[in-house]
């Protein structure tokens, strides 16, 4: 099968391009997929994460993927972030704006920590104040841990980031080809027809968790959303056929995507201290 991929930017249209690909590629078993980039006229490097997650499912179903007709600037970007390495393209030196495309198994939290330690410095750090940088890192770990706890992804988690120095923003995207936040919420609430938008809305409310064991949950996503608001950054959460954006609300895709993608945009010009007023430990419990 040949599919012409559309533009892949950090917006609804970017995810629409992926949904179009998925609507066809999801049907393939033991076949060949030629992914033609000739119509992909623009691309944000971090979108390699959800593309990589989709193609991991395609490969898991014993299909062979070939990537062709990539425009030069986009090819260079995807060679620098090492996305194209798996498709036979030589890697280019990453440069100062890239957090490379990488996959992690759900058990590799520490490796993910090493990845952030190695690749975050210089991408808006240390311009970003220490406090903001710390809360950003905590938020990123919360997203990763959310995938660990809820995605049931056998293929792991896919990560990629891009710093845009002229716009003073850093996009870091974490995508898992697992069960998906919407399906997880539907199963938990016993409502299989719950629209994706309402499922995401439920998951984002403070105190909500699909956990059923002895460990409470439901703080991490709220923590992250509070940071995004204060930082004047953005977050996109894509699951099923819904795209949630903290800055633009909910939007629909023409067809659904598997798993969950969280696209985190941090405003690296943030100079707030993020200092919290002192809370005496004795007053916490």
């Amino acid at each position, binding site marked *: 099968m040949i599919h012409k991929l559309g533009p892949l930017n950090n917006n609804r249209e970017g995810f629409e391009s992926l949904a179009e690909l998925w609507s066809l590629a999801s049907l393939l078993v033991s076949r060949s997929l030629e992914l033609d980039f000739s119509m992909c006229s623009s691309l944000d490097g971090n979108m390699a994460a959800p593309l990589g997650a989709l193609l991991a499912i395609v490969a898991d179903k014993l299909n062979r993927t070939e990537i062709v007709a990539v425009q030069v600037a986009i090819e260079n970007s995807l060679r620098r972030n090492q996305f194209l390495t798996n498709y036979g393209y030589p890697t280019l030196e990453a440069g100062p704006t890239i957090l490379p495309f990488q996959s992690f198994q759900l058990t590799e939290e520490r490796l993910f920590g090493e990845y952030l330690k190695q690749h975050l410095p210089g991408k808006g750090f240390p311009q970003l104040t220490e406090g903001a940088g710390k809360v950003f890192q*905590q938020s990123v770990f919360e997203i990763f841990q959310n995938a660990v706890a809820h995605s049931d992804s056998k293929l792991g988690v896919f990560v990629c980031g891009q710093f845009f120095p002229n716009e003073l923003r850093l996009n870091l995207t974490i995508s898992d080809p697992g069960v998906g936040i919407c399906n997880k919420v539907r199963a938990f609430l016993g409502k299989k027809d719950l629209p994706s938008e309402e499922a995401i809305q439920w998951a984002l409310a403070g105190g909500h968790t699909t956990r059923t064991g002895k*460990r*409470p949950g*439901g703080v991490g996503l709220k*923590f992250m959303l509070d940071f995004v608001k204060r930082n004047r950054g953005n977050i996109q959460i894509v699951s099923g056929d819904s795209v949630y954006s903290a800055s633009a609300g909910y939007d629909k895709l023409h067809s659904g995507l598997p798993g969950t993608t969280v696209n985190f945009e941090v405003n690296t010009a943030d100079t707030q201290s993020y200092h*919290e*007023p002192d809370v005496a*430990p004795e007053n916490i419990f």
Partner: protein
Amino acid sequence: MAEVTRGEVVVRVFDVIGTSLAVSSDDGQKVYEKIAPLLHQGQKVRLSFDKIETIISAFLNAAVGQLYGEFSEEKVRDLFNVQEMSPEDLALLKRVVDNAKLYFDNRKEFDQAWRDEVGGQQ
């Protein structure tokens, strides 16, 4: 891993999990499994975050939030405390503790209210 100071057992997170990143539920579980038996014995416990650089809610939910499913608020308040946490991490811990109290108090009612709201089945 633990030392007794002025009648309190100090449990050092770094020694239990072996990393400065307190970012996983499983590592939080390891810490919980050190603390809970001591509290069952009526032993005072102080959890030290010395050398810990990053802490997230998922870790704290497992290590500390879970205590409220096993012990009363009074018992946790009397026997448990923390040290060497930044004001920001203490604020996060407060969120986790407040959430855990609600979770264990109202879990059934809270989830049923949502199921009713969206028309799902129990």
